[in-house]
């Protein structure tokens, strides 16, 4: 019996050969890391990435299936030096050797940096990184929401710091996956639940320290947008001091660690109590001062009033005296006292003019010390003196 392909009669089909080659190649090479320079990169609309990896003398076709692209922070740039992990195989339709990439890294964290910058630029374009968007944290939160892994050290730290600072504050935990492929969706869902519930004063979103890959969900654009959309002020707390994520850029407050986030969120109860007591003291003191001032003013006014009324009595008295003196000089009694008399008709009216008399008329004479009744004997009226001409004094 002849071997397959050993004679024209036993010729293999192309499919048979390439399938055999594929099996041989896959059997010979377990998943491995390879390195090279990226060229002819294409992100196809079906979601797969196609490119070549090459060096000075050789090149290899590579593909990243769309489901695997999610594990890679960003598509590589043309010419970028990368390390790719995957399986060597054969693409039968083209009769080509092909490397199926499952994971990729670039020199100097190039892909992470690129993805970070890309997300940052997208958020910046929508104004989500504008410093004026940052809201002040509530000064006296009563209910703090925490979005993190329910069994991480971060949650433990946050709870113990909050309870130490103010045991009266309520802590509402919204569990979320904080690493792995499900983390972005899980964080977005938690933020969305919190937004719909909308019954907390502030939210802490975060996790403890970890590798760059562990923290990557906090660089996810959707997570960043969900944080930006939060109706309540947000505090990001991702990893350690040195870890800076997109979530930190978009949150209202960036805490270096989960414990620091708890400190930022919750003021110390004793400080609040002292503050309230101080406010009470200061309004009491201010009110007392007011009342004392008012009392002082009142006494001042009553004193002034006393002085003023005393003065006005004196003024009136001296006025009365002046008037009395004037009255004295004008009084006919004074004239009579000097020895003059005034003639009065029967009704007591004064008769100052001779023309008012007729011979035989009865009248009275009012004297200093009594009255004399008399009868007119003769009446001589002097002709009136010519009135002085006006202007001639």
């Amino acid at each position, binding site marked *: 019996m002849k071997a397959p392909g050993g004679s024209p009669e036993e010729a293999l089909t192309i499919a048979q050969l390439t399938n055999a080659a594929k099996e041989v190649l896959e059997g010979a090479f377990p998943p491995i890391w390879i390195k090279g320079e990226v060229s002819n990169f294409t992100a196809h609309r079906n979601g797969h990435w196609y490119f070549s990896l090459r060096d000075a003398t050789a090149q290899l076709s590579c593909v990243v299936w769309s489901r695997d692209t999610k594990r890679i922070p960003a598509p590589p740039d043309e010419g970028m030096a990368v390390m790719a992990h995957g399986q060597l195989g054969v693409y039968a339709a083209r009769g080509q050797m092909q490397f199926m990439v499952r994971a990729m890294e670039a020199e100097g964290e190039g892909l992470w940096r690129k993805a970070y910058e890309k997300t940052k630029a997208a958020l910046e374009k929508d104004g989500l990184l504008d410093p004026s968007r940052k809201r002040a944290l*509530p*000064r*006296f939160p*009563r209910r703090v*929401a925490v979005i993190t892994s*329910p069994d991480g050290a971060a*949650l*433990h730290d946050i*709870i*113990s710091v*909050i*309870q130490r600072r*103010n*045991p*009266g*504050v*309520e*802590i*509402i*935990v*919204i*569990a979320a996956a904080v690493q792995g492929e499900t983390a972005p969706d899980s964080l977005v869902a938690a933020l969305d*639940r*919190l937004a*719909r*519930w909308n*019954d907390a004063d502030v939210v802490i979103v975060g996790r403890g320290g970890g590798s760059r890959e562990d923290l990557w969900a906090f660089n996810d654009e959707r997570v960043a947008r969900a944080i930006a959309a939060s109706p309540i002020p947000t505090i990001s707390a991702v990893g350690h001091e040195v870890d800076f994520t997109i979530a930190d850029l978009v949150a209202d407050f960036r805490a270096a660690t989960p414990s620091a986030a708890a400190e930022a969120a919750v003021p110390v*109860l004793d400080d*609040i*109590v002292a*503050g*309230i007591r101080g*406010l*009470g003291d*200061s*309004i*009491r003191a*201010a*009110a007392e001062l*007011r*009342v004392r001032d*008012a009392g002082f003013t009142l006494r001042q006014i009553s004193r002034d009033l006393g002085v003023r009324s005393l003065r006005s009595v004196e003024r009136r008295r001296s006025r009365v005296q002046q008037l009395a003196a004037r009255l004295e000089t004008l009084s006919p009694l004074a004239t009579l006292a000097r020895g003059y008399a005034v003639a009065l008709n029967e009704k007591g009216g004064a008769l100052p003019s001779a023309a008012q008399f007729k011979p035989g008329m009865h009248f009275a004479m009012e004297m200093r010390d009594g009255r004399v009744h008399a009868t007119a004997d003769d009446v001589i009226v002097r002709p009136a003196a010519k009135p002085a001409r006006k202007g001639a004094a």
Partner: protein
Amino acid sequence: MTFEENLERLEQIATSLVRDDLSLEQALTLFEEGIAKLKAASAELTKAEGRVAKLVEKADGVFETVDTDDRG
């Protein structure tokens, strides 16, 4: 009024009371309001019951908070 609003009003009152352009009557009215706010805020502080709870969303979209025994 929330605790925070009470305290903010209290701070406003404290600032207003030291101003000179208030009549005694206005000052006393403010003082009375301040004392009321002070009482409300202090009562609020003692009323607080700290707890750690989980937010749970039921199938019909209704939220509830369920206490956990996680005390930090």
